[in-house]
């Protein structure tokens, strides 16, 4: 009975992480705004900034990975490999989120010492959508940290309960 609830909990967590990562990708890809500044109009898209492109690619990889692991059968020996892959995916998520937040913070507040002006005043809807995508990425990261601890608990037996 405990095994069934354990497996069900793992599946629910992974599906939620898949949804969060997919939501982050979609929210960032569909963010696009045109603003007119006197006679010139500029279009703000996510691909203007390298950090946002990295964020989209990393979260896409994570959502595909979670979707594939959802279908891994319970008795397969690949679960030990899944623990290592979960650690690498968590690293990927945190690095992409951190880079995107660092660049978005410059876009929102600017950097007075470097002479970089904030851009959120001219494209507010773009900024809001980027914020939403970053929050979804943060939710995916927190879920993956829980999943990592969960898979270590169920696969590696850290409390040394099973005598071999």
């Amino acid at each position, binding site marked *: 009975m405990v095994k069934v609830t354990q497996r069900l909990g793992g599946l629910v967590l992974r599906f939620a992480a898949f949804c969060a990562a997919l939501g982050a990708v979609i929210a960032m890809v569909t963010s696009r705004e045109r603003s007119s500044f006197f006679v010139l109009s500029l279009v703000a898209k996510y691909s203007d900034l390298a950090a946002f492109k990295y964020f989209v690619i990393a979260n896409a990889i994570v959502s595909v990975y979670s979707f594939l692991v959802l279908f891994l059968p319970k008795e397969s020996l690949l679960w030990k490999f899944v623990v*290592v892959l979960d650690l690498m995916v968590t*690293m990927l998520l*945190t690095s992409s989120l*951190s880079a995107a937040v*660092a660049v978005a913070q410059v876009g929102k507040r600017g950097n007075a010492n470097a002479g970089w002006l904030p851009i959120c005043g001219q494209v507010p809807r773009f900024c809001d959508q980027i914020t939403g995508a970053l929050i979804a990425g943060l939710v995916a990261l927190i879920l993956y940290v829980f999943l990592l601890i969960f898979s*270590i608990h169920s696969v590696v*037996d850290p409390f040394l309960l099973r005598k071999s």
Partner: protein
Amino acid sequence: MQMAVSKLLLAATSRKSCKVLLGLRVLAFSATLSAAIVMGLNKETKTFVVGNVGNTPVKATFTAKFQHTPAFVFFVVANAMVSFHNMLMIAMQLSGGKREFAGFHLLSVAILDMLNVTLISAAANAAAFISEVGKNGNKHARWDKICDRFVTYCDHGAGALITAFAGVVLMLIISAISISRLAQPYKCTSTVATPSVVP
């Protein structure tokens, strides 16, 4: 004194993988510490001519410090924390004997290693992307590049970044070894009682 230190080292590395783990931790400690120090001391002051009043040029002094960018502050703090963690783990491996399997020792080492891996990868990546914007500028957002004017600042920052990324790779390997130690626990100290360090 030298005899005591060498006996301590021999006791702490009774297996080959324990030697490898200790060596990797020393490397990771030095890499992250040097990254933190190099970025923490990163500062450049330059005087530019900003305009002309009549015939005399008007000069202004500009400083580039690492505190101006929040991502670099995060980088310095995170590297300091990870190097402190590695120093703590080295001390624990060299000193602990009977307490190796007590309670949650192995589990807490594995979890702390995982947390530090994510911390340092986040810090290194944030600093890398901000430096990319500083190096190439961004013409869509109208942000000018600063590396053509503050060359030494950018060079020192690049060096700190490279060492931090080496630290990321090392921490990942260390974390993988710690997790595999959970699967098959083994002691890293010999069963002989460790001698005291006092000469």
